[in-house]
């Protein structure tokens, strides 16, 4: 299960790793990823390559070893990193800056293409920018100052700012639709914002009844726009249907410490990945006998169905995750640890195709090129 996953020690604590997107038409596996570091006096963003694809060499381990392509100094910790497109990377800095780097393929160098210096700020201090989401050319960022800022790449100024969107730190943001985003904050709330509306109020607020556990990460289901997964300080994984109000679909104990990132597999959403401060990276796999994807299983749990006020458009399908335990549902859930042994905190992961990359506080990067999906 663990073949093809070795640690590469890189002399910097890795805060973020992201695959460079591959064009959806090609069937290629990704071969380039970017990393950002944190807690260094000189932080960096780096671009790595895992070598030629399609050459199934005898010495797979050696070939899979990431090689540094280029790097660039980064002012402040890299708190988030996203590819805007094939050439550009946006980073969120602990200084409150939002930076676009351009990767020049000819010279294999990185350079700063755009910089919004104190995008997130307090009146006197710096406020770290904590999360980014891109939908080229639009960029949305969130920060410890509770602001949501909308940028457009190549435009100097800020498109729109939602001031004081939150009285606590916003940790992560994701697009629900092209004009709608969802943020999670450190008092355990999910807030949906509609950019078509003026004003600084969210259109919807969701949270768990019970303890307000800070939420650190959120990811939207690739195909179902109303299904999101969140993870937070207590390491619990929650799946929500944002149309259904104040109750998550399911709550699962995942990790014994903060969950830093959660990702649905972009092309195979029955698979979910999460990583945590406790040093583990989990691969969640739901499976069912029927053809319909697990999230669209016909429900058995009548109590949830009766609570829903929305008649499902599809008619016979109510949207209940097969991850809901308790009944002899058609689905089952398997969890596997993806790292060979306990490490320091796994801060970030990314999965694309059959490739998984993650970075840890042990200053190591792990790449797995044969993720079973």
């Amino acid at each position, binding site marked *: 299960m663990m073949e093809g996953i070795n640690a590469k020690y890189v002399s910097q604590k890795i805060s973020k790793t992201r695959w460079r997107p591959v064009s959806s038409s090609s069937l290629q596996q990704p071969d380039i990823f970017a990393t950002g570091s944190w807690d260094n006096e000189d932080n960096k963003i780096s671009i790595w390559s895992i070598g030629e694809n399609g050459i199934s060499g005898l010495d797979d381990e050696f070939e899979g070893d990431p090689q540094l392509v280029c790097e660039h100094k980064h002012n402040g910790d890299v708190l988030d990193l996203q590819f805007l497109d094939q050439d550009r990377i946006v980073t969120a800095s602990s200084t409150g800056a939002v930076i676009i780097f351009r990767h020049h393929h000819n010279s294999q160098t990185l350079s700063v293409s755009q910089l919004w210096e104190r995008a997130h700020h307090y009146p006197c201090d710096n406020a770290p920018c904590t999360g980014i989401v891109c939908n080229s050319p639009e960029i949305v960022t969130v920060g410890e100052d509770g602001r949501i800022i909308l940028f457009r790449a190549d435009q100097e100024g800020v498109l729109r700012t939602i001031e004081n969107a939150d009285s606590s730190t916003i940790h992560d943001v994701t697009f629900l639709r092209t004009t709608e985003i969802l943020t999670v904050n450190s008092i355990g709330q999910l807030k949906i914002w509609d950019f078509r509306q003026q004003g600084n109020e969210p259109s919807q607020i969701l949270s768990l009844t019970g303890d307000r556990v800070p939420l650190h990460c959120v990811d939207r289901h690739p195909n179902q726009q109303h299904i999101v997964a969140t993870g937070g300080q207590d390491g619990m994984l929650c799946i929500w249907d944002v149309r259904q109000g104040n109750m998550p679909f399911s709550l699962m104990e995942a990790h014994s410490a903060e969950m830093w990132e959660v990702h649905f597999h972009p092309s195979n959403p029955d698979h979910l990945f999460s990583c945590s401060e406790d040093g583990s990276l989990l691969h969640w796999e739901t499976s069912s006998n029927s053809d319909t994807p697990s999230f669209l299983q016909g429900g058995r749990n009548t109590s949830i169905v009766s609570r829903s006020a929305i008649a499902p458009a599809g008619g016979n399908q109510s949207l209940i995750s097969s991850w809901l335990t308790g009944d002899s549902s058609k689905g089952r859930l398997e969890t596997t640890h993806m790292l060979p042994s306990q490490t320091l*905190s796994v801060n970030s992961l990314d999965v694309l195709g059959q490739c998984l990359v993650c970075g840890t506080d*042990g200053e190591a990067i792990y790449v797995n090129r044969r993720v079973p999906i």
Partner: protein
Amino acid sequence: MEEVDVEPTTTPIPGFDSNQKHLGFVWGPGDILVYETIYKASGGSAGGCPFVHEVRKDEDIYSPILRKLFNESHHIFVGLQRIREDLPSKNKKPQFVSISKNYRSVIRACMEELQQVAVYHNDSLGNTLLSLELIWNLCEVLFIDAAPAGSLVLHLLDWVRLHKADVDEKAREVLASESPAEHQAYWDVVISYVLQGRMDEARQVLVKQAALQPAARVMFKLLDNLLMKMPIFNPGETQTLTEFDVKWRHWREEVDHCLQDQSFASNRHLEDICKILVGDEDVLLEYKELLSTWYHFLVTRLLFSHPTVKPTELHYYAQSSMHMFLDTRSVPEPLDSILLAAFEFDIHQVIKDCSIALNNWWFVGHLTDLLDHCKLLQSHNLHFGSNLREFLLLEYASGLFTHHSLWQLAVDYFDHCPEFGRVYLELQIERVPLDTERKALKVIRICEQRQMTEQVRSICKIMAKKALRNNRLGSALSWSIRAKDAAFATLISERFLQDYCAKGTFSDLDLIDNLGPAMLLSDRLTFLGKYREFHRLYGEKRFSDAAKLLLSLMTAKIAPHSFWMTLLTDALPLLEQKEVIFSADQTHELMFCLEELTSGKSQLFTLASLARVKQLFTLH
């Protein structure tokens, strides 16, 4: 006070003349801050100097390549601590040897990387790593693997071969040349192979020479035969040590015969080889350059004179080898005394000498820890209470803590120091600078996992205050909840209430409306939540519910006295409603509260409003 073992090194401070002025200093966690005082050496005082110098002992910790060493070895260290105690020691030895090899491969990997990167500068680091690997390897052979007589020489041979790899390079060069037998380094290669006990390779190279001299074919065949027949102890076979010894003596006699017979007299080189085979020390010493180190000389000597040497006899040969090989006038290098101490099986001396010679505790810390796991260290209490292993690990981890990034590794080391680790960690963890929330969260998680509640509280308080200063009330509340800090939650609620009194509306409604069970953390917070609820109910025109809530806030004593006036004023519009909202009992209670307020010490009301309220109440 104990005597110092070596003279302390002097570090000159630039721009400072010790003859002129006195120096002041203060110790830091990993360094010393030094400054020039105003006091003259000769007495009296003069103007001061604006500079403060930071003197650091350990620069290595900042090398990016060494960082890999620290991280990888941390991983190995943690794995080692987790090996179960209850396994019988027979099963554990191979595990320990394997761990030792892991450590060594990490050192080697760093060394190789250093060689690739630094060709001109700072290869002193590469050399240091080379020596470290040499020492560690020897310790593995002698202490951890603890080879018995017979295997001991073989393991030592491996050790020497690993660290004298230039022979193969030279051999490649010679064999690749047009006429290998005439290459100037040809005989060097042959002799080096023989000195290292690599008879097969020696024979292969000798064949080239034999081909050139058909006339001397018999002689070459004879030597080839001798080389081939040399007995090598095989621990796997059923042959005992005694049997091997007998065989070996027979062979040696045969070689001696050939020497006496002058069989190789016509070829000096072949004769030298023969003399080496019988362990002729004078001849061996002639080839000092090829041996290059006294320990190579030692091992070669043992191979050809005492292949069944027992571990306890090693030190005698080691000392004599060193004396024979080295120039008696030269001072032994630190490396030499360390290796000698190892051959003498004086583990403590090895550790002590390494500690002095190196400026970083990495090596001694990890090696001692491994040896301790092998139960090789006597429990040797130092003056300050902890044992040697713990002392070294504490020193190493404290050094790590001074690094802006590697402090996280240090935590695991402290965890495995049973006596003082926790105290050290408690003191150090509070000094980690907290620039971002994420870092603070990680530090708090470390403290929570170890039940360091004091540290959790103090860190949360720092973060909460910072948030409050920047008017991030939600963040501040989130930190107070984490620390279960009721006092701070009260403070935050006061801020909200002050804001309300000042502006007339609530800020951050998203927070107050969604407090949930966190509301119960502090009375003031509960009040805040309920008060907001009152406003909501009023806004929804649910007046009787609002009134009931308002009253309960006062009678249940949740509302602070300072706020009662505001509450009573809030009650006014309810009283002024056409329909009766407050029942007789409720009104009675309101009056009671009013009385309590007026008779009390609080002067937070004007006489006019007081009069109005009284009037309204009596009217009703």
